[in-house]
């Protein structure tokens, strides 16, 4: 500790600068992790000079074809895209609906008994750690590969996120209104319907749209566990037809931009 004598003779101590500890910890972790990553990269070809070549292959027509063929292929993808959107929409709506009762049960201000909401929260926390390919694997084991498995996987995933977002939202509401309703003799269900619901509904819809957006963005991963979606096109032609992969990428990007714009508009209207 640095000792400083002030002009009036008082001695003060400058506190330790704790940021050095933080920097050392971060630096140590970085070195450790970098070492681990480098261990695993031995023997793997790392060829960044390939990147421009790949990009050119992806976003230009195949040899012997023209741009017309390139864009005609994108239009041909509409069936796969519709399937993907089906899974995402159905999954998001179902997951968001199922999230409502569970989020009510895990919010502190609605259920005031600790031993109800704590186990609910713990289980949901545990459930939320499962990534979407694993959820898809679970669904595939039950219903086989197909739209249904993808839809259920997305529903489970949406459910997990939505419960968390929703109970955090419910915990911030104005409880005076609930108390007012209860003092007029409303039961719990009526209080939820007329005091909780109107307060959280706009944000709830906003969250649902936001989750739909992320779901569409991440649905391509489902093809890697065997559910046909827009990612299947990428996966199936990744060895031979780079232009088809590029077409699929452009399509996903366009859809993502459209959804983003749409969700911005809706959320601004609701807010």
């Amino acid at each position, binding site marked *: 500790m640095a000792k400083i004598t002030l002009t009036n003779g008082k001695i003060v101590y400058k506190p330790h600068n704790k940021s050095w500890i933080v920097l050392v910890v971060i630096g140590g972790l970085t070195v450790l*992790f970098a070492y*681990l990553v480098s261990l695993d990269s031995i023997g793997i*070809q790392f060829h960044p000079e390939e990147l421009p070549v790949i*990009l050119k292959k992806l976003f230009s027509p195949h040899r012997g074809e023209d741009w017309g063929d390139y864009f005609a292929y994108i239009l041909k993808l509409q069936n796969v895209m519709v399937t993907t959107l089906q899974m995402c929409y159905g999954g998001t*709506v179902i997951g968001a609906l199922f999230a409502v009762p569970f989020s009510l049960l895990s919010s502190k201000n609605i259920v005031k008994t600790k031993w109800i909401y704590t186990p609910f929260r713990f289980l949901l926390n545990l459930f939320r750690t*499962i*990534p979407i*390919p694993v959820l898809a694997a679970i669904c595939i084991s*039950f219903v086989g590969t197909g739209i249904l498995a993808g839809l259920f996987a997305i529903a489970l995933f949406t459910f997990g996120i939505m419960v968390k977002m929703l109970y955090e939202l419910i915990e911030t509401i104005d409880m005076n209104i609930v108390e007012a309703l209860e003092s007029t003799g409303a039961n719990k269900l009526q209080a939820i319907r007329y005091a909780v619901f109107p307060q959280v509904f706009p944000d709830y819809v906003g969250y649902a749209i936001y989750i739909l957006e992320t779901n569409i963005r991440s649905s391509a991963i489902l093809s890697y566990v065997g559910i046909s979606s827009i990612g299947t096109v990428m996966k199936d032609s990744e060895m031979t037809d780079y232009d088809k992969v590029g077409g699929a990428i452009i399509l996903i990007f366009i859809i993502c931009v459209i959804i983003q714009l749409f969700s911005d508009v809706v959320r601004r209207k609701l807010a």
Partner: protein
Amino acid sequence: MNRLRNVLAKKPKKWIMNLLFVAAIGTILVLSFDGATINPLRFPQIPYVFLGIIRGFLNIDWSTVLGYGEFTFSQSIAYYAIQTLAIAFIGTLVGGILAVPASFLAAENVVGKRVARIGRFFLVIIRVFPEIILAFILVKGIGTGPITGIFVIGIHSVGMLGKLFSEAIDSMDRSSIEALDAVGADSLQKLRFGILPQLMPLMSSIALYRLDINVRSATVLGAIGAGGLGTLIILYSNPPSWVSLPGVIVAIMVMVLAVDSISSALRKKLV
């Protein structure tokens, strides 16, 4: 009493619009199940599938998870989990460091409205571009392995963190900078004593939150070839193998919950 009834009658008839919305959402929901078929032979199988999954979780082969006995540590699931952590940590760190200059370029009160708009536009482009597709392109371009994962997480984090950082900068309190101006500080000193103390806690808390999300997405990205646990998920889930998958799931749960609790404890300390 009459007056009350009149007021009630004047209540806007919202229910028509509400009904239309519900009907629209419901119709699209029904349509989204179009083509979702399930083999009826699967129904009697469901209890067995369920039992199989439970049995898988009860009989986890811990020697593959922790890497002892006939397995070395570098073959174990735990090793892949640490690799996932490494990808997420280094990716977040790199992304966070790069996001600082990017966020200054997107903050209105630093560079002015016009430049900020351009900066923000670039950040939006990075954010809208799906992580999975970025991973796909980079895996093709620079090769498989954890380094690709770091690149993907890093690039995506620049977009996300850049936006949040620039919002933090925009809402910064300027009075301390003016005070430093008044005592004659140069711009480096202003940065060190006026801006950094204000922004560091907020930025670190945002970055820690991002680390949380990145651990989850690093898990998924491995499926495309970006290293880490995702490699194992795809290996064991296409088709699902409930002998090996439970070990991976447990590893994911432990890893994500640990990172979650550490980062939320640190965030509580910061803010």
